[in-house]
């Protein structure tokens, strides 16, 4: 929290904005990347979205009111950027977004930047069958170890609703793995 306050002070002062931004990237780049990567799947796309996310953060940092954590605010921008990106890609391919996601997953085995074995491939297929919100909640809770109240800040959803989403997500994934493995 202290780190966030220092960063924010640097970012909102024009003379230290660039230094502050460098520090912000250093602190959050990996977490932001992995969050985006799990949504857009491909490394190259994740790289594009990550860069756009940081640029958006840089341009809009003066508008950050501080009514939520900086971390949550950035996560929200990253999530929106990634979802917008994948919707746009699906539209370009004249596909429904869930079909497009399935298409991405089916190409994973030939992806240079995927080293998963069969079970990890099945897990990605299982995640792709979930509704968008459940996908996000599962990835953020299971892989990123975020707390419900943090996810609640990011996705603007109540903790109760998130718990229910997570419950349904893990149940479906368990069932999918049992069926296909």
């Amino acid at each position, binding site marked *: 929290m202290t780190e966030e306050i220092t960063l924010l002070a640097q970012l909102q002062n024009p003379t230290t904005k660039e230094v502050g931004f*460098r520090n912000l990237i250093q602190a959050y780049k990996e977490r932001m*990347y992995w969050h985006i990567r799990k949504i857009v799947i491909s490394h190259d796309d994740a790289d594009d979205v990550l860069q756009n996310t940081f640029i958006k953060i840089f341009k809009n940092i003066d508008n950050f009111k501080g009514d939520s954590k900086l971390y949550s605010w950035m996560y929200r921008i990253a999530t929106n950027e990634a979802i917008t990106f994948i919707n746009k890609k699906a539209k370009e391919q004249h596909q429904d977004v869930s079909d497009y996601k399935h298409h991405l997953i089916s190409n994973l085995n030939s992806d240079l*930047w*995927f080293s*998963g074995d069969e*079970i990890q491939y099945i897990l990605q297929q299982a995640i792709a069958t979930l509704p968008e919100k459940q996908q996000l909640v599962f990835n953020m809770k299971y*892989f990123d170890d975020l707390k419900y109240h943090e996810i609640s800040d990011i996705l603007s959803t109540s903790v109760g609703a998130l718990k229910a989403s997570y*419950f349904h997500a*893990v*149940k479906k994934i368990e069932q999918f793995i049992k069926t296909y493995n």
Partner: protein
Amino acid sequence: MDKETKHSIDFINKKINKKNGFIIPDNYFDKLDDDLQVIINQNSLPEEHNFEVPKTYFDTLENEILSKVETTSSRKPKVLLLRKKIIQYIPNAVAASVMLIIASYFYFNSNDVTTHNFNTTDIEDWFDEDYNTISSDELAILFTADDFTEDELSVKVNNDNLEEYLNTIDSSNLIEELQ
């Protein structure tokens, strides 16, 4: 619900152990800092370019382009008829063929190697005109000793002429030539 969730999570953990199989290129995150720095620097550049256009330029542009388009489209495209084109080339083709036949006739029926006879005057003229370009080897091929009289080959200089000639020569030029 929590108990059931935990049960399912235990199952998933056992199967995949929180690994998703995604990997990234080596040094990706190091490079990312530089990439973003470039983008930020780009973004901090002024967006205005300060070039000016005449006030009514964009108002009149549309009409100007349209008028050119109309002028261009109103011109009738030139149609070239293949038949006409072929007929146009027939006389040339015939003339070329006749020339070829005549040239072939003379070429294949002539076994003589053309020789030219030069008289001495020709050679002298040529020698006078092209003196500077003649090498001593060429001269040796062209002339034999019989072509010259004894008088022409001997050098007769009296002492007075020689002295006068030597006085006209700049000594520094002479030294340079001797070197």
